[in-house]
């Protein structure tokens, strides 16, 4: 009997399509380069993330498909395969394309402001913040001290007692009624 099992066929073909899609996306994600070791691949990936495409200004080599970016990726791959170190490859690129090639500029007098200004600013801000907090605390302390110093003297206390005494208040209400009349 040549009856076709339709549901089974359907699931099979759907599975095949999904598998095909998967393999295609895998192909898209992986370059055609073969590496000797996972370390080499990690080194290559790190470098193409860090190196900038000289043609496209704001993309790294990993993100760019410009012809020169492809060439530089190929070159990076070749150098990695040769067993060159990260710094050797960086130097190789920098010799040809200058500081611009790397998103990690080297530390030297002309780039000091780039490297040291942000931490310096942070330090200054933290110092300023501490200073202000300290200053405020001092002021608060000063204020409480002033208050204790200016506690009532015995004569003032007597005056206050006199003013608050029931007799006095009675007198005051009397005065008020007088004023009203």
């Amino acid at each position, binding site marked *: 009997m040549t009856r076709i099992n339709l549901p089974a066929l359907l699931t099979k073909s759907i599975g095949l399509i999904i598998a095909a899609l998967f393999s295609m996306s895998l192909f898209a994600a992986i370059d055609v380069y073969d590496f000797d070791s996972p370390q080499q691949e990690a080194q290559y990936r790190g470098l193409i993330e860090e190196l900038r495409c000289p043609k496209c200004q704001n993309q790294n080599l990993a993100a760019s498909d*410009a012809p020169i970016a492809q060439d530089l990726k190929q070159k990076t791959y070749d150098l990695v395969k040769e067993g060159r170190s990260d710094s050797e490859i960086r130097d190789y690129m920098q010799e040809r*394309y*200058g500081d611009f090639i790397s998103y990690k500029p080297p530390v030297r007098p002309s780039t000091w402001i780039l490297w040291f200004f942000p931490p310096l600013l942070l330090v200054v801000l933290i110092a300023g913040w501490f200073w202000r907090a300290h200053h405020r605390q001092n002021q608060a302390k000063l204020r409480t001290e*002033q208050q204790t110093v200016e506690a009532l003297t015995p004569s003032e206390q007597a005056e206050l007692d006199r003013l608050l005494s029931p007799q006095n208040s009675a007198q005051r209400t009397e005065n008020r009624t007088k004023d009203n009349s």
Partner: protein
Amino acid sequence: MDSSNQNKPATKTMNKKQLKVWFLIPLLVFLGLMVMLYLRLGKPTDIVTNTALERPVPTFELPLLSDTTRVMSNSSLPKQPFLINIWGSWCPTCIIEHPFLMKLKDRGVNIVGVNYKDEIGNALSYLNERGDPYSMSIQDLSGQFALDLGLTGAPETFVVDSKGVIRQHIIGEVSEENWQSRIAPCLMLLNNKQGQELDAKSLKEACQ
């Protein structure tokens, strides 16, 4: 009692004055930014990577385009100041640039061509069709020589002095405009000062 009452308003007004100063800071920062941004208006935003400057032409051993059995090297380069032009038959801007290069050839400018990642058949028919402005063209199939030069994309042109040191790097096409404003002054200086020591200041002025 009275003295403490007077003290409080005094500290309060001081705080207010301090606050006013603090409020001024963002305004000043804003004004600074405005000035900075205004000064950059209309200026080119591209970062120019002319790093091949002040370096000798990288060593190379590449075949001559017109006769690939002959291998050219640094010693085959002209002993007078000249231009290196990177080109390819596949490169649209090179086609736009080409007529001007022919004009430069007529004006007696020595241009060495580097045929960059091209097929030799296409390259030769390109020169046959449009004329050959180059004193010679070398074949850079792999693009390694261009990479050593610091190429970002064809066409690019380098001005080289009589000692084989690169003095100027032009990204993009050469035209009457940048020829008059940039390249000719540099080339003239290099021609006039052949064999003499070049002083950094005049070099910087002429060969930016």
